């Protein structure tokens, strides 16, 4: 798998965890403290720094726009914008070895 894509998967996971930590009810059910959140914010920061600058900027821009910067593909369609990907993209052997974006919405994709 592409190195940057691997980092994006981890980063996306951290972002989703931090998002859910904001929910009071969730914090109560699972006993999440402010200290735990701080630790994971630092982890997120460290992971983010591993990305090339242009990917950092793009990822943050996508997050602001869509709420996340990475999406999967189902039956040939991007799970963010629901548009079909071009046939040549779907025909790529080992597609996750490359860092691909959806030609329609620009989100990073994992096939």
């Amino acid at each position, binding site marked *: 798998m592409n190195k940057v894509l691997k980092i994006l998967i981890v980063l996306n996971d951290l972002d989703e965890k931090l998002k859910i930590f904001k929910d009071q009810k969730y914090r109560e059910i699972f006993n*999440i403290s402010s200290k735990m959140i701080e630790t*994971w914010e630092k982890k997120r920061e460290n992971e983010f720094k591993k990305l090339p600058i242009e990917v950092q900027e793009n990822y943050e821009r996508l997050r602001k726009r869509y709420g996340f910067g990475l999406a999967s593909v*189902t039956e040939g369609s991007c799970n963010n914008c629901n548009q079909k990907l071009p046939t040549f993209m779907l025909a790529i052997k080992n597609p*996750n070895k490359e860092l691909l974006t959806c030609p329609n919405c620009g989100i990073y994709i994992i096939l």
Partner: protein
Amino acid sequence: MLKELLKPERIILNLVSTKKEDVLKELVDVLDLPEEKKKIVLETLIKREEIGSTGIGKGIAIPHCRSAILDKVYLVVGRSKKGIDFDAIDNKPVHLFFLLCASPRDPESRYLITLGKIAEISRKLSRDKKYMKIEDENEFIEYLISLEGK
């Protein structure tokens, strides 16, 4: 809500695992996903457990994650009669697991609502241990659905 997510093929009434990571793998294995994606989901779940156990006590755990590699909400229920050490908050073995995995694309906050619902059902389950006796997947689903309405 749970009715849509509970499927007989995603109910494991006799978990064989005895360790924390193994039980997560056993639960993830049921998902109809390619191996590479299952591995990512498993890693995500393990990382969540590092924050703090999702064993909420009284024999119940709710491991969960939201991942970009998923395209829908999955719920897997697993039961271990023997119980598994899951570092639960009350340090007691866990007998019932609700694995919830979803896509980050969740405009109706279904993921959070479902997590809340499961936690609510878990409180009822901990008072009534009938779930340890049922031996049929469909009956087990009916039982969980009946608790949701109570």
